[in-house]
């Protein structure tokens, strides 16, 4: 075959379409409407609650490293951490960041520091609040347990990619009286957050959280651009389902190019 790898034509077309839409919507001057995501809206409320109670806010990044396929979720998580850093610095609330993978540690530290500076309270940054745990699943979970039990955060914000430890965080968070807002891109494990947390973000809402919190026009519009791709996916799915039901495999063959 020519320049394109076998079986990757449609994937490349989709990639190109997302890129074109991203560039197009970036230039827009007005923000498009985003529907309410309850979990994201409650983040600021949770921070205020923590401030009133005089207890810290806890957040984490999960155990997956940045060089894995979970990088988009980690980046989305870092966006949220940036917002948390700003808001907690403004209100004088302690923010504890429990970091699993070591390659995320310097990023999280810098984002926390920058958030405090952006809030006009650079002295709010405490390096001791950014704690490296480990990227082993259960030792990481045990360490988060310990932080929850000893330091009793009033708000737990876990938005990113989590595995089976998701259930532990929700249950222990409830026991310590914290409000837990969680979002997981690991779909099979999202159910753990749904049953144990107060507010849950599902799937793409995790990626949208950062844009939502930033109130930045170009980032909000970028989220809107993804909706166009979703509509295209819905149309393709319906057409494909009808075609296959009628015994035609043309559509499948085209998408397999």
């Amino acid at each position: 075959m020519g320049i394109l790898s076998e079986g990757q034509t449609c994937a490349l077309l989709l990639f190109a379409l997302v890129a074109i839409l991203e560039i197009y919507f970036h230039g827009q001057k007005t923000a498009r409407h985003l529907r309410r995501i309850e979990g994201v809206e409650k983040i600021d409320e949770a921070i205020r609650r923590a401030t009133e109670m005089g207890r810290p806010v806890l957040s984490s990044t999960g155990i997956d490293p940045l060089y894995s396929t979970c990088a988009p979720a980690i980046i989305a998580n870092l966006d949220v951490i940036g917002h948390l850093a700003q808001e907690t610095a403004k209100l004088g609330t302690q923010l504890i960041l429990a970091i699993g993978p070591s390659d995320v540690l310097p990023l999280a530290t810098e984002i926390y520091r920058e958030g405090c500076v952006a809030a006009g309270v650079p002295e709010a940054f405490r390096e001791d609040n950014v704690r490296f745990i480990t990227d082993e699943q259960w030792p990481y979970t045990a360490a988060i347990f310990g932080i929850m039990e000893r330091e009793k955060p009033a708000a737990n914000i876990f938005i990113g990619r989590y595995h089976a430890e998701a259930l532990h965080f929700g249950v222990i968070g409830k026991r310590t009286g914290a409000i837990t807002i969680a979002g997981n891109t690991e779909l099979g494990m999202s159910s753990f957050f749904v049953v144990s947390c107060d507010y849950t973000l599902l799937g793409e809402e995790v990626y949208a959280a950062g844009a939502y919190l930033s109130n930045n026009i170009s980032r909000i519009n970028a989220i809107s651009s993804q909706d166009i791709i979703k509509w295209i996916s819905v149309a393709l799915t319906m057409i494909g389902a009808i075609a296959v039901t009628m015994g035609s495999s043309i559509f499948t063959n085209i998408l397999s190019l």
Partner: protein
Amino acid sequence: MKMSETLKTKIPKLIIFLCGVLTIADLYLNVPVSVHNSAITLQKIAMVISAFSIGLGVASILTHHGGAIMRRTGGWYFSIWLLVLFAIFAIVGFAYGPTSDQYMWLFNNIFVPVNQTMYSLLGVFIVYALYRTFQAKNIEVGVMIVVSLFTLIGRAPIGGYLWSGFPAIREWCKILNLGGYRAFIIVSAIGAVAMGIRVLLGRETSILGRGGE
């Protein structure tokens, strides 16, 4: 000032863009072998850099727990215990090697049981979480409960024996689950691709440790 801005943002963004384009080209296009090998080398470089950051992590642990011990903050004795175990594992690992009998003894008798204890908590927590959460407050939750009951009994070894319909209903519920799950996979993938493109175009600065655009 300008140089600092260039060093801090422009050059890293350029590096990200070039590395991203190389990796994407290797995936989607039939590139020459040299380009393919470069893409593989890039991935290996990423892993090596990541390994270096473990040193940062170790420093973080020592700093935090050392400080907790000195300040006698709550639970400081646990910090002593952590540092003692850390030292034991490190010394034995360096002295005898990570695959030696001595290290394996420590691993099998300390790390593995504790790991498995934490994993076992999952079963107990699930029971309690289901008991508290699965109350039919509305129709959606009611439907979820019914499906869950069939899934539980269909999955239990005794279920298939009691009635062959239980596993069959469970299998059918998987098909319901499959439709929703595929939808989530597609939208999550679109979100991830869009995030990746924003990183490539330099619009996501959190990758550089910067909070906003």
